[in-house]
């Protein structure tokens, strides 16, 4: 009996010490460092805000930077200074009569989605009408019967850039995130329509009726096309796909969710964007990774080799290791706008905000 107690005590102490290093809770020291890195990153953004209140003269980048401030551990508010109020003013100055919020005809859907997500994060009811009109705009560009797309069309339920009618998973995920964050009713038909498109972008022949669909569970950019060759799955889009499925109301037992999570486990890494061409879309991947892992709600993930990872520790550790001396983040591979320090810094801070927020 004595031996049994000694052995039990040994295993309990091992379990406790293991938990302190790689257990479900985030390493507190790393969390402190993450908060410091966020402060430095926000400092960088404050220094690089344009006179008109924007970052990079873009509604999208401005919305992301604003969100980075509002959702940080500092929980900035409008009364904290012009770096908040001026950016809101810039966003509001770009509101269009049709509800879109964009400084150009490009990325209208992205910009609108990011803008209303940021405005919602202010918790200021004064922006309710702008947010409501933005929701209507986003829902209005979803492809459905009103635009001659029948439910059996591969693009049905998809949301694109807003300038044409080609939908893709990247716009879809940002749009759905905005609709979720701005509390669109879960019974709104927009979600079920969106699920059709999301399902048709997944390499999962069990749930995807498209002939090209493979079976690894990952996501392509859009039905039948991946920028990384053929219809190959890759990390950024698979995390975007997973979080989109969860936003649309699916639970963890749904075969689409389990398939996507399985791909993420098998391809778990923070060294690169798995499945993508070298370092392309790396920070998009980190950002989507943080959101999807947070939404999935598991503190640990077991990779394809059976190794258990605390994703929060891994993500924070990685982002801390690549923060530049000037306090920003940037990708040397500039494709997909990742040469824009304002954008990449905002994405990284948002990722860190998700990682250090342990109460979903």
């Amino acid at each position, binding site marked *: 009996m004595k031996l049994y107690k000694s052995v039990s005590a040994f295993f309990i102490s091992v379990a406790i010490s293991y938990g302190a290093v790689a257990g479900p809770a985030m390493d507190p020291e790393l969390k402190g460092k993450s908060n410091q890195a966020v402060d430095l990153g926000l400092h960088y953004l404050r220094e690089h805000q344009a006179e008109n209140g924007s970052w990079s003269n873009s509604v999208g980048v401005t919305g992301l930077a604003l969100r980075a401030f509002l959702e940080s551990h500092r929980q900035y508010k409008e009364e904290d200074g012009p770096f908040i109020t001026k950016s809101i003013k810039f966003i509001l100055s770009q509101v269009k009569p049709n509800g879109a919020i964009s400084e150009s*005809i490009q990325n209208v859907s992205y910009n609108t989605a990011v803008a209303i997500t940021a405005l919602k994060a202010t918790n200021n009811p004064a922006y309710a009408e702008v947010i409501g009109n933005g929701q209507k705009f986003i829902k209005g560009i979803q492809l459905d019967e009103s635009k001659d*797309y029948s439910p059996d069309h591969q693009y049905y339920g998809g949301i694109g850039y807003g300038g044409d*009618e080609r939908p893709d998973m990247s716009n879809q995920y940002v749009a759905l995130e905005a609709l979720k964050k701005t509390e669109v009713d879960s019974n709104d038909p927009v979600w079920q329509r969106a699920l059709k498109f999301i399902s048709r972008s997944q390499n999962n022949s069990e749930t995807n009726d498209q002939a090209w669909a493979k079976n690894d569970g990952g996501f392509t950019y859009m039905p039948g096309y991946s920028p990384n060759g053929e219809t190959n799955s890759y990390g950024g889009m698979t995390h975007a796909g997973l979080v989109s499925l969860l936003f649309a109301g699916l639970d963890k037992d749904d075969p689409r969710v389990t398939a996507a999570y399985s791909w993420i486990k098998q391809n778990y890494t923070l060294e690169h964007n798995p499945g993508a061409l070298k370092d392309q879309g790396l920070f998009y991947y980190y950002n989507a990774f943080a959101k999807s892992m947070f939404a999935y709600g598991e503190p640990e993930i077991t990779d394809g080799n059976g190794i258990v990872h605390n994703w929060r520790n891994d993500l924070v550790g990685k982002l801390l290791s690549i923060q530049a001396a000037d306090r920003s983040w940037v990708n040397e591979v500039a494709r997909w706008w990742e040469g824009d320090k304002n954008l990449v810094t905002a994405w990284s801070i948002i990722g860190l905000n998700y990682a250090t927020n342990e109460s979903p």
Partner: protein
Amino acid sequence: MTNPAPSARNQVLAFLLAWFLIVLAGFWAPSMCIDSAGPVSLKADLMLRTIIVIGLGYLLYPGWQLQPSRIQALFWSFMLALAYLTIAIYVDDNSVFTATALNATIAIFLLSLFLHGVVISLSALSTRKGMLPLCGIWIFVLLFTLPLWVAPWVETAIVTPARLNIMLWSSPLSYLAAMLDYDYLRQQWFYQHLPYGALRYDYPDARYYSIGLLIVSLITLVNPKLGKGL
């Protein structure tokens, strides 16, 4: 250019026939370019018809065979705009004349005026005036397709957003995109086959571009030192 001048009646008939052919092509040609990916958006449809009207409007311009004049160029540009207006009203399902269609109409008028102005200007510098319409076609095609044939170098040679913008703004296609509020570079084919979707670029300000086209066209058309002998 040296043909004997036909009668006024024949000139009118030639203009009307060409105009009618352009209207017909504007109506029917897009329906032959079926997009297998799905229904074509109204803006994409209008863009395609705009290009058809401008292209055919230049190629079928009766003034090349008759006795061209600045007044004819102005008149022809107006007729092309009218042709497009007719087509756009037909294309719009709800028969509601939209701001997009109006912008496209203005764009057609200005681009046509500009193209004719360029040819008239070149005629002052060239002794081979018969070649000028052909030169105009080449300029037209090269500029319109600029984003296509420059695409392989945009990520290596044209690395800054400013240079990329200058290149894109040199193409009338970008002007049309701005006027039609249509980001054609993110249309499916362009997105999948060209690198622009991954880069940051802006379209020109449609108002300033329009004013610029108008000023240049008026200078080339009004200046009596240009276009002598055309």
